[in-house]
C-alpha cells in the first residue's frame, strides 16, 4: 500500500514522568506538536506501526547485543519502569510483517537479530503513548544498539531503513514509520544536562531538507560528540533510508534541561506522497 505516515519524536522519560521540570512554554510547544501529529496520524487510518527505536538495558545486556533486533512476537508489554507513571500495557505485534522485514533484510545482505519476547521501556512507550494512546494498532519494533560500542554505523542504518521502506510500501497495509530517540543528551554521563542545540538544529535542517548524503555521512563519533544518547539518532537516519526522497517539517524543538535532552518532533513526507497530494 504505502507509507501512510512518517515522523520522528523524542522519548525522554521526563516528558511523561517529570514533565514539570520543563518550562510551561516548552511543554506547550511540545504538546501542540504532538497534537498536530496525532491529528495527521488519525486521518491516515494506520493499520500497522513500524517503530525504529532504542532501549536502555531492558532486553539486552553485555551478554548478548546485536546491532539491530526485530521484534517478531505477537505482543510486547511496557513500560518496564514503574516510575513512568504508566500502567504496563500489552501492545499487539505483527509476526508476519516482522518476518517479511527480516527475510528481506537477509536477502539484501543485512542480518538483524530477532526476538519473540521483548519488553518496552520509555524509549518505545513514550512515542506510542502520544501517537497511539489506545495502544491498539499492531507494532513491529526494530531496536538499534545505541548503548554498547560498536554501534551500527549511520550508513548501515540507512541501508536497513531502505529495506524497511520497501517492505512498508509493498505490505498491503497502511504503515506508520516512526523513528524515536535523541536528540542531543548525555544521560548519566559527564555532560549530563548539557544540550548541544547547535548540533540538534543542524541535524533537524538536514532532515527537513531530506539531505540523505549528509545524514549517511555521520559517524557514530560525530553523533556521540553531542552526547552519548545522541547516538539514538541512528534511528532517524534509518527512517531517512526508508523514505529515500522526502522532506521534513519540524513541529517542535525544545532543549529541555530539566529532562537533560534536546527534544525534536518532526513530520516527514515521502516524495511520492507529495506528488499524490
Amino acid at each position, binding site marked *: 500500500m504505502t507509507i501512510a505516515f512518517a515522523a520522528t519524536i523524542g522519548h525522554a522519560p521526563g516528558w511523561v514522568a517529570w514533565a514539570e521540570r520543563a518550562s510551561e512554554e516548552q511543554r506547550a510547544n511540545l504538546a501542540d506538536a504532538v497534537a498536530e501529529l496525532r491529528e495527521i496520524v488519525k486521518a491516515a487510518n494506520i493499520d500497522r506501526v513500524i517503530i525504529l527505536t532504542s532501549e536502555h538495558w531492558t532486553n539486552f545486556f553485555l551478554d548478548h547485543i546485536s546491532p539491530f533486533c526485530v521484534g517478531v512476537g505477537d505482543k510486547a508489554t511496557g513500560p518496564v519502569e514503574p516510575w513512568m507513571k504508566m500502567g504496563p500495557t500489552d501492545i499487539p505485534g505483527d509476526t508476519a510483517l516482522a518476518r517479511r522485514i527480516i527475510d528481506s533484510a537477509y536477502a539484501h545482505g543485512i542480518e538483524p537479530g530477532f526476538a519473540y519476547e521483548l519488553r518496552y521501556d520509555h524509549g518505545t512507550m513514550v512515542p506510542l503513548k502520544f501517537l497511539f494512546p489506545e495502544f491498539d494498532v499492531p507494532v513491529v519494533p526494530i531496536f538499534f544498539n545505541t548503548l554498547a560500542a560498536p554501534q551500527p554505523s549511520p550508513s548501515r542504518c540507512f541501508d536497513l531503513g531502505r529495506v524497511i521502506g520497501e517492505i512498508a510500501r509493498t505490505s498491503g497495509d497502511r504503515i506508520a514509520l516512526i523513528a524515536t530517540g535523541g536528540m542531543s543528551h548525555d544521560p*548519566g554521563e559527564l555532560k*549530563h544536562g548539557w544540550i548541544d542545540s547547535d548540533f540538534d538544529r543542524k541535524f533537524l535542517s538536514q532532515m527537513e531538507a531530506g539531505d540523505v548524503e549528509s545524514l549517511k555521512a555521520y559517524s557514530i563519533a560525530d553523533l556521540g560528540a553531542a552526547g552519548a544518547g545522541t547516538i539514538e539518532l541512528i534511528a532517524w537516519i534509518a527512517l531517512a533510508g526508508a523514505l529515500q526522497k522526502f522532506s521534513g517539517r519540524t513541529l517542535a524543538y525544545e532543549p529541555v534541561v530539566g529532562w537533560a535532552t534536546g527534544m525534536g518532533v518532526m513530520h516527514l513526507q515521502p516524495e511520492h506522497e507529495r506528488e499524490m497530494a
Partner: protein
Amino acid sequence: MEAPETLVEEAGLLPHESSALIERNYRALYGLGVHGLLLRPFSIIHEVPEPEYLIQIRGESQ
C-alpha cells in the same frame, strides 16, 4: 544491595572493582567504565541527588 560482599565474589570482581562497588564510589565506578545508564539508576536507588551524582563522577569537590 543485599550481601554485597557475596555478590562481588560471585561476580569475580577484582579487589579494586569490589571496593568501588561496596563503597559506592561513583567516581571510581565511572572510571572503571560503568555505563551512565546503569550507574545513575544505581545511585538513584541509593537516593543520591542528581547534582551530587554529577559532582562525584566528575571528580569535583563539593
